């Protein structure tokens, strides 16, 4: 974990909305969550991101109280909630399949948590109408869930989860069942609602784009643990591991062995190829000489410079052959084969006068040594 994240966590301690300490869950001999520590600040939008089976949903279900942890503790607004049943946690939850009560209208669904809290009839009516307005469904309160579209149903579910002003809003892949376009507009709507209510949100998704767009911070889950916790920029520009580098964004991964250059920087060596590594990247990785490592370069940081491209100590340069040209609309993506045999993806913005290349063209690519990220390689 990077030093600035540790500093953030200490600063957050007094007003934390949610604190998980050593949270564990095992099913028989299978460990689903393996010691998760996490602090969520008040008003923060934090996403648990990871592949399926990485423990993110299990963690969320333990926070909601649907599952008892095998170990560790859960604290919500300073109160220990580890053994408190779900109906006394005062936490709102939005499910992937909406989980709207089919025998109740949208308005009755939204009124349900208020009824359970014994509010006055007039107060319930007022707050239900406010909540439905918040999700732009004021006129559809009389409809049954089956009379609403998927997007509308999920907005009712959101209204129902926030109408009682819970201390925490949990969302379990809430947009997973919706098509891409609707997902985009609902992402914005969820962000707006969360900001307007100053809600603390713990959001689960396996969609890294969604996580980057919506979250203040992201916790990357892998094999039941948090692999890295940080802002989207932290994860994208300063991944702590090969897993994170590979999972977030597109990456070129050049594996090899790390060597120091005697000074602040270093080299990544593989057979006959040598890639220079910048000072800050080398310092962050804290690798010993000769350690197996991976050099991660984002496709958009690599430029195609032509045969007579510059050679200097500040850039890595390689000759390659164009293998594939992919049109991505505003961008073009080239799949190259380096002369050393490794494959490399390069993403270039169209326009800006860049010359079009064809399959089979010989090109020279270059990237600044500061754009190469160094991470340990656990697989070698």
């Amino acid at each position: 974990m990077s030093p600035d994240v540790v500093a953030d966590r200490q600063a957050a301690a007094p007003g934390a909305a949610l604190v998980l300490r050593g949270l564990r869950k095992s099913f028989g001999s299978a460990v689903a969550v393996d010691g998760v520590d996490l602090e969520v600040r008040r008003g923060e939008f934090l996403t648990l991101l990871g592949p399926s089976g990485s423990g993110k949903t299990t963690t969320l279900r333990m926070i909601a109280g649907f599952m008892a942890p095998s170990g560790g503790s859960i604290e919500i607004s300073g109160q220990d909630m580890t053994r408190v049943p779900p109906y006394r946690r005062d936490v709102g939850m939005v499910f992937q399949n909406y989980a709207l009560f089919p025998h109740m209208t949208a308005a009755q669904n939204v009124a349900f948590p208020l009824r359970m809290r014994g509010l006055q009839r007039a107060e319930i009516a007022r707050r239900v109408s406010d909540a439905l307005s918040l999700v732009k469904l004021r006129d559809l309160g009389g409809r049954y869930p089956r009379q609403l579209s998927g997007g509308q149903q999920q907005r009712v579910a959101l209204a129902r989860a926030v109408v009682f002003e819970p201390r925490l809003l949990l969302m379990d892949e809430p947009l997973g069942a919706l098509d891409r376009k609707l997902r985009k507009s609902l992402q914005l709507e969820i962000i707006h609602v969360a900001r307007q209510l100053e809600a603390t949100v713990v959001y689960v998704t396996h969609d890294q784009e969604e996580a980057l767009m919506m979250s203040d911070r992201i916790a990357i889950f892998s094999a039941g643990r948090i692999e890295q916790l940080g802002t989207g920029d932290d994860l994208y520009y300063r991944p702590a591991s090969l897993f994170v580098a590979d999972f977030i964004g597109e990456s070129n991964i050049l594996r090899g062995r790390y060597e120091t250059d005697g000074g602040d920087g270093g080299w990544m060596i593989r057979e006959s190829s040598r890639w220079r590594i910048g000072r800050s990247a080398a310092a962050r990785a804290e690798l010993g000489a000769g350690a197996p490592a991976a050099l991660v370069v984002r496709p958009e940081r690599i430029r195609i410079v032509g045969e007579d491209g510059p050679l200097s100590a500040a850039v890595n340069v390689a000759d390659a052959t164009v293998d594939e040209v992919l049109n991505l609309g505003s961008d073009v993506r080239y799949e190259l084969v380096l002369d050393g045999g490794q494959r490399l993806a390069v993403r270039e913005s169209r326009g800006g006068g860049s010359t079009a290349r064809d399959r089979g063209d010989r090109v020279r690519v270059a990237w600044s040594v500061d754009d190469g990220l160094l991470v340990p390689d656990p697989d070698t």
Partner: protein
Amino acid sequence: MAALGALTVFYLLAPTLVIVPMSFTQAHILSFPPEGFSLQWYQRMFTDPQWAAGIQHSAQVATLTAILATTLGTLAALGLSRGRFPGRPLINALALSPLIVPVVVIAIGMFGLFVQWKIAGSLVGLVMAHTALAVPFVIVNVGTSLRTIDRNLELAAANLGADPRRVFLNITLPIILPGVLAGAIFSFITSWDEVVVAIFMTSARYRTLPVEMWEQVRQVVDPTVAAVSTTLFVVTTALLLLLFVVRRQAPAQ
């Protein structure tokens, strides 16, 4: 194919349907084809003290059976589908066994037991016996509803502040209600036209309609039996139609 189907349906329904015109006959013996048209046998059914008592007893036994079997069967289905305890598959099989065991065997067994308990030939004994026959239908119907319910709905209700009792009353029960009602209707019908157990469990003082028919047919073949049969048939058909409506009303998930 259509003709074959029609033939099969005719074969299945003809014996039942032939009784309907026979019940409107003017003649004094059961005969087909009927002669003339008259409602006298229906009038007889309601005015003759023995028939009237039979109708009343059958309605009484079937209603009580439906209430008791639905309550017990719903609770059993909940326990069997939600509970995690040793021997659950065995208990499930035993609870459904009245569907498989020959009715006459059940009847003889219960008769022996109920005579000892001194409830043979009484309303209580008959309701208990019919409840045992009807409970499996409730367990099957409610169990099916419980299996199709989305467990996230119950989790969502708990998350929104409902304790387990309120989750059941506000969410689970309304959603499985079509299954519960179907179970209740099946229970009513099971008791309403049951004759084997009823022959053992009734006495001359307390007879249900099917038993009364059985007794009467053995003595006099009077067209009242046709009128009673038609009434039984109409009530059962009406209930099955109701069942169909209830099933269609099940909320789409």
